[in-house]
């Protein structure tokens, strides 16, 4: 057995008032993928930040190739060959791929000028290691690349700086199925090259596909360590301390599905075409498809954010045409944005203010913020209690809450408006397993109370498990429909089949 590249011994880290890590030991060897799993708040990020020099441990030691190291700053760990790829990329969007790869260490010509040709060639060399390389032109501006390709560039950058250890923090969070497969191939390449990989994820499937060993953190301690990848149930049990029996809520029974809430005929705009869509009261309709297939564009069209330019929309029997989100909300549509932080939350405001934002937006500017036609502080607090939002107080800033709790506060915002149609975009992105189940059940409860629900998700098992019907989109059109419980393969095939031909 090879000696570990990185060995973290008995790491303890305390933040004011809370012990984030206690006595955590962890190691990773060359040429292996070590999966690090745990619910949000279990201590994964803290551990990684200690490894990468963002935080310093209170006690314990970090050994690299058997020698103790002290990283006082992220640059120290980077120099030592540890590269961390966060969910938010560190690439400069306005620069080319090659410029990003060689940022700060550009090759020079004899005259001291940047040797662009050499840079381009070496970039090609590095990219050639990855399956996705054929697509990437070293001269492309990074901002023009899609998220998955940017990620490849980010990983290529780590490789080109000679990283011996690569940490990936939920790398698939923003990727669709096909892109995930490419990422997995990239990770395989890294492993073959003898790089040690620490892979943080919530998704059991990725662990099964990639990991050599698994470490489970819970409440700042190592809850379990597996030298071989066990059955997903075992990992989940270690993560949450119990089995999750009913992860998805049961599908709607036929008598729960009522009349039409939403009907679109021939809807289209710059990116959508020929959209025919029906959503009934009491049902959850899932929208699957690869990134750019038009799922989010469809949600934005319905919500008046980038409206339909042709076709007819009927909401609850009335012909409607919404030009702004405000008009759509007034008409009875709610939308949970896909990017909680940048589109959903007002982070510096309290949990309660986030929950009451929409109801206040439709009340008089000059009247009291405590009570309006749709909600009041007492009812909002009741709603937040009912959804079991964990917060010290609803007066605290929402940014301190976990992703799942933040998401619930946005759901509360819409609940008080009693929408006829509620659109969820990536409702469980980046939230832990327990909260995911909570969101699925919440969606089902809403449907039972008579709302129609449209759910967009890049997590295929989630769409299939949580929705009563799955519609598949491709290139701005709805191309297939599947009932509850369809196979992942069939849905995947419908989502990608034609585009492969087209490409």
């Amino acid at each position, binding site marked *: 057995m090879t000696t570990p590249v990185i060995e973290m011994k008995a790491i303890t880290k305390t*933040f*004011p*008032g*809370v012990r*984030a890590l206690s006595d955590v030991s962890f190691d990773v060897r060359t040429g292996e993928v070590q999966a690090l799993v745990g*619910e*949000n*708040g*279990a201590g994964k990020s803290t551990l990684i930040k200690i490894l990468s020099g963002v935080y310093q441990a209170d006690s314990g030691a970090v050994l690299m190739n058997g020698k103790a190291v002290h990283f006082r700053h992220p640059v120290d760990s980077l120099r030592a060959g540890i590269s961390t790829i966060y969910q938010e990329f560190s690439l400069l969007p306005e620069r080319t791929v090659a410029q990003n790869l060689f940022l700060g260490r550009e090759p020079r010509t004899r005259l001291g000028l940047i040797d662009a040709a050499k840079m381009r060639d070496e970039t090609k060399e590095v990219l050639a290691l990855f399956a996705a390389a054929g697509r990437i032109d070293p001269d492309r501006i990074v901002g023009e690349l899609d998220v998955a390709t940017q990620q490849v560039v980010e990983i290529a950058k780590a490789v080109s700086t000679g990283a011996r250890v690569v940490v990936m923090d939920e790398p698939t969070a923003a990727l669709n199925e096909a892109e995930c497969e490419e990422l997995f191939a990239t990770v395989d390449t890294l492993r073959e090259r003898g790089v040690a990989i620490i892979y943080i994820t919530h998704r059991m499937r990725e662990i099964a596909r990639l990991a050599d060993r698994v470490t489970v953190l*819970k*409440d*700042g301690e190592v809850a379990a360590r597996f030298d071989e990848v066990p059955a997903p149930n075992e990992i989940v049990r270690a993560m949450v301390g119990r089995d999750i029996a009913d992860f998805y809520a049961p599908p709607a029974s036929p008598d729960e599905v009522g009349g039409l809430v939403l009907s679109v005929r021939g809807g289209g705009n710059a990116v959508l075409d020929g959209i025919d869509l029906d959503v009934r009261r009491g049902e959850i309709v899932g929208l699957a498809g690869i990134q750019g297939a038009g799922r989010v564009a469809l949600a934005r069209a319905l*919500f008046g*954010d980038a409206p339909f330019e042709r076709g007819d929309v009927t909401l609850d029997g009335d012909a409607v045409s919404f030009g702004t*989100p*405000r008009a759509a*909300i*007034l008409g009875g549509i709610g*939308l949970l*944005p896909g990017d909680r932080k*940048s*589109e*959903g*939350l*007002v*982070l*510096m*405001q309290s949990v309660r*203010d986030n929950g*009451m*934002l*929409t109801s*206040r*937006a*439709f*009340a*008089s*500017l*000059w*009247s*009291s*913020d*405590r009570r*309006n036609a749709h909600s009041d502080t007492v009812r909002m607090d009741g709603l937040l209690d009912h959804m079991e939002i*964990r*917060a*010290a*107080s609803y007066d*605290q*800033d929402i*940014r*301190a*809450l*976990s992703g799942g709790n933040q998401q619930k506060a946005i759901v509360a*915002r819409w609940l008080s408006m009693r929408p006829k149609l509620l659109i969820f975009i990536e409702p469980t992105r980046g939230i*832990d397993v327990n909260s995911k189940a909570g969101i699925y059940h919440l969606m089902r409860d809403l449907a039972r109370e008579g709302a129609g629900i449209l759910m967009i998700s890049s997590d295929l098992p989630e769409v299939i498990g949580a929705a009563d019907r799955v519609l598949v989109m491709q290139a701005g059109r709805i191309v297939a429909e599947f009932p509850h419980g369809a196979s992942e393969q069939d849905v995947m095939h419908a989502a990608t089949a034609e585009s492969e031909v087209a490409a």
Partner: protein
Amino acid sequence: MSDRTETTHARTRRLPQINPVWLLLAALVAGIILMNPGFVEPTGYMNFLKRAAPLAILAAGQVYVITSGGFDLSVGSLITLVVVGSSMLTNNDPAATYWVIPLMLGMGLGVGVVNGLVVCFLRVPSLIATLGMMITLNGLAFLWSGGAPRGYLPDTYRFFGRELVRDVPLVGFIPVSVIVLFVVVGILAWLMHRTNLGRQVHAIGDNPVAARLAGVAVNRVRITAFMLSGLSAAIAGILLGGFAGVSTDVGSGYELQAITAAVLGGAQLLGGRGSVFAAFGGALALTAIFTLLNFLGLPQPVRQVVQGLILIAAVALAMHRRKQTGT
């Protein structure tokens, strides 16, 4: 465990959170009292409040624009335009005050509307839009007065800036301007912290995209914030016209003082957080600093240097705190 983390974090952060501006103010006032014991008499502190009133009112209005994510640089020259315009329009006629004052308040609101419309619909960043407005209004004030404003306003007009209410129990007297100050700050604080308007001003400054997707009428709220700032400038102008004479530089520099005061009070530049009371505290602290510098006999340029350094220090401190709380 994640909820326990949040709980303890929140508690430790919530415990004794007193805005540092009040500590600063207390220290400065202690300094003033040391140098001038007469400050504890009503004449001392009432005069101080009276002098601080225009700036404090202006800062209370400015904090709306800052919290909504913008700046309003036009308020200084709006003050000048109000003073100059009032002197031209009243034309020494005491009876004219009764229509000139409402007209000036209306003009303040109108300038705010224009600022807001330019920012919302022409997509000009507020810093530039209001800078342009500042230059424009300055020019208008010159044009209107022909560069030589009448140096006089009728006593009826100067009532707000100059008169006192006498025979008040406890304090003896209260300047009318101090009453105006408390009323305006009280109303603006109530609007900011107890109404839907205030919550939405915070929301659009915090995250305009999220606010729009949540149904907030972002433009309406933003324009209203500029209107309140313009209105506060008109009120400050009416008070200043009462204390000081008429000139074409009466308002100059007030815009930056108002921003400094708001930031001293902990308002988040670029939006999302701001308190009217704390901006009021910031204005008092800034006035107290100027008073101290006066006592020390330091000339006007030093005052500018100090003000500049305070602005930078206050913003740096705000950014540091923001980083610590982890945005």
